């Protein structure tokens, strides 16, 4: 039923950038191989080559010991190779059933679709996750109306409906909640028994140790390590992923307890936020935690004036009503989005254009370009952005450097209040360390930071206090001794556990 895949010495160039210089991966029927690597390491490129989305420049792909060359994703699909990305392949206006069966719909002899069969077979697939999803997830539901976790499940079911022999799960658990992940892992064990070969790409160490048999690590475009899970440790894997760069110390600082309150929020309601009140002190690093989609992003967007909201917000004891990000910016508020390529950057414009976008009005008319260039240069230097000139397109920067540009454009304005929306998601370990130091520096100069992270470890290490959101409300405020992983998890689920 399954197959064996051997990717050997794969090379891939995108224009002048070398994404993969020596990619290798081996996986056989019935086993789960974890594919690990920092962002920009080349692991997504490798999976895209295996699934035929992208063509390699050099190297060999052997499927069942036969040389394979894919000119189109459908060629790989025909061999039974299917990938699940983070909801990259769903059509929003089409229904769950239509999406699941797209390109292999059950048909009559006259080429007409069998609608009823599509619906019943979709329901059978949806039942695999019964008990972990809401009633909105039915075969006729348009994808656009579903929650991210539900969409991810449809992606997974879509892959399974094609009866794959090799299944690649690329960060497929990112938007799933705890119960859904447990169910998925149960299903994976069944699929293993059926002989399917599985590649599991993930950043989550705990999950990898739970489900994988072997692991392969890619760093800077090269496969550097491959080992059975029982013969390796977490530390070893991290070491292989980031090389010998040591992790920067966390930005943990003593919280200035009696400092004035910079931000006071009372009864904020917006999007999925249903009445949140909080206080943020000067120079404090306040964390927002909880499962994904519980209102954290909407809270930050509301505070930035990007979405309509009700409730009282006071900055430095003055009531404010931000109706547009521009209003918030004028009061010294800054917002760093989670998805930098769609929300944070103008990819086909220069680094200068990106850094100065919020600030052009400061340079008068006509714009004083020499000053704009020099201000941007010093900002880039402070952030240690690796570039050859400010006129380079931002799309030519690596992930970590691009994230610095997103930060840089706000730091140049010396904000009083910095709102961060899961900024280190998908950022590699080395860059994370630099980021934490930056946060520490900002706090030293008095900036207050409200920081949402989907990474529990990060919250626990960095923050003085953490507010956990559940269902759009604050379910717990954790500080000092109460700020531990168990309490965090409990509050995320909406239950209480005091340790």
């Amino acid at each position, binding site marked *: 039923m399954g197959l064996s895949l051997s990717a050997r010495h794969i090379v891939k160039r995108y224009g002048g950038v070398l994404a993969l210089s020596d990619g290798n991966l081996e996986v056989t029927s019935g086993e789960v191989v974890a594919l690990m690597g920092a962002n920009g390491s080349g692991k997504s490129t490798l999976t895209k080559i295996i699934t035929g989305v992208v063509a390699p420049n050099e190297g060999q792909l052997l499927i069942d010991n036969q040389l394979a060359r894919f000119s189109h994703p459908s060629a790989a699909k025909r061999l039974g190779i299917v990938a699940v990305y983070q909801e*990259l392949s769903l059509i929003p206006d089409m229904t769950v059933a239509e999406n699941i069966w797209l390109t292999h719909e059950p048909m009559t002899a006259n080429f007409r679709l069998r609608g009823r069969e599509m619906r019943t077979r979709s329901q059978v697939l949806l039942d695999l996750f019964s008990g972990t999803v809401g009633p909105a997830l039915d075969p006729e539901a348009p994808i656009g109306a579903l929650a991210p976790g539900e969409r991810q499940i449809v992606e997974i079911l879509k892959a399974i409906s094609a009866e794959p022999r090799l299944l690649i799960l690329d960060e497929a658990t990112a938007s799933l909640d705890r119960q859904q992940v447990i169910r998925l892992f149960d299903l994976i064990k069944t699929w293993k028994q059926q002989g399917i070969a599985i590649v599991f790409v993930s950043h989550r160490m705990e999950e990898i140790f739970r489900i994988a048999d072997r692991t392969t690590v890619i760093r800077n475009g090269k496969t550097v390590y491959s080992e059975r899970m029982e013969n390796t440790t977490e530390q070893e894997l991290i070491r292989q992923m980031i090389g010998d760069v040591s992790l920067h110390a966390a930005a943990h600082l003593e919280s200035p307890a009696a400092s004035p309150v910079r931000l006071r929020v009372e009864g904020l309601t917006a999007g999925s936020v249903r009445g949140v009140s909080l206080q943020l002190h000067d120079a404090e690093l306040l964390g927002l935690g909880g499962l994904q989609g519980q209102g954290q992003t909407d809270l930050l967007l509301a505070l930035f004036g990007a979405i309509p909201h009700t409730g009282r917000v006071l900055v430095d004891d003055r009531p404010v009503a931000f109706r547009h990000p521009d209003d918030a910016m004028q009061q010294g508020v800054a917002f760093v989005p989670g998805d930098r390529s769609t929300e944070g950057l103008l990819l086909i414009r220069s680094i200068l254009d990106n850094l100065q976008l919020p600030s052009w009005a400061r340079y008068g008319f006509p714009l004083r370009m020499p000053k704009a260039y020099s201000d941007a240069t010093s900002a880039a230097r402070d952030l240690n952005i690796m570039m050859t000139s400010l006129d380079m397109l931002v799309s030519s920067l690596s992930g970590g450097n691009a994230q610095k540009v997103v930060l840089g454009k706000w730091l140049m304005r010396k904000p009083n209040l910095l709102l961060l929306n899961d900024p280190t998601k998908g950022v590699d370990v080395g860059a994370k360390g630099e980021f934490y130091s930056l946060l520490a520096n900002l706090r030293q100069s008095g900036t207050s930071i409200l920081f949402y992270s989907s990474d529990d470890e990060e919250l626990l290490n960095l923050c003085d206090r953490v507010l956990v959101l559940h269902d759009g409300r604050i379910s717990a405020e954790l500080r000092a001794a109460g700020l531990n992983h168990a309490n965090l998890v409990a509050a995320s689920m909406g239950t209480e556990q005091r340790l």
Partner: protein
Amino acid sequence: MSINRLQRVLKRHSYLFALLLLVVALLINFSLQANLFALTTINRNLANSLPLMVLVVGQTVVIIGGGIDLSVGAIVTLGNAILATRIAADASPGDIGLAILLTCGAGLLAGVINGLCVAYLRLQPLVTTYATSFIFSGVALLILPRPGGDVTRDLRTLYLSTPGGIPFTLWMVLLIVVIWLLARGTRYAQFLFATGGKPDAAYFTGVPVNFVRFSTYLWSGLFGALAALALTVSTRTGSPHVGDSMTLQSVVAVILGGTRLSGGQGGVVGSLIGVVILGVISNIISFANVPSWWQTLVNALIIIGALVGPGLVRLARKAVAR
């Protein structure tokens, strides 16, 4: 749950708003023109509208697929030129058949050119089909430099006939609807909607996006040729600029009918309704005794009102919700 289902039905059948518009427009028209629903009136109106109706079928498919075809008017002119020169007043069925075949071939060839440029050379559809419209107009002009031709009366008689008490043209419209409903239930249709809705996702899933896009232009070329056939049969002559106004009219009709310009949803039924709406509006204006130099403005205002309508409703709903 029932509100949800209602929303789903509305989304699935994007032509419902257009249908509402049509009913309103027909009522107004009827109040001004008592014989609106008489057989002869219907026959005449349909005979005028059928060419545009045939044309919008192809344009709808292109737009659903995420593109647009601004050369359709030129393709109609080209088809008209071929037919007018090859079908004489005394043409035999063989001549007629050959001429129709040639016309369809020309339409398909035009579609191939458009499709290659947009799908494989990845040129932007708007400007490219505008450029190719020059090419097709030029060829049409080569074939028929001056208005002329005298197409056999027999075809026109057939066109205006009423077999079984129902106009031939209405049979044609019903045929189009039936063909569309059948085609809508095929895998190709799923590919089409996926390509227009989210091409990257469709590609990842294995949909042959480039080929699907290419094929949509073949359809608009073919239906352009068929529209030319309807037009030529009705007017019996050829003219170098006959198709010019039909291009933008086809776009307006498709949008009135509820198909989104960005692609991924919509349907032919709505576009057909859109064409009828355009005709009814035109009727209303002439029967309402609007002074001749006001007619264009009133027509344009009504159309822009219809185009803007759904957007205004959405705006009002948002304001109320706030």
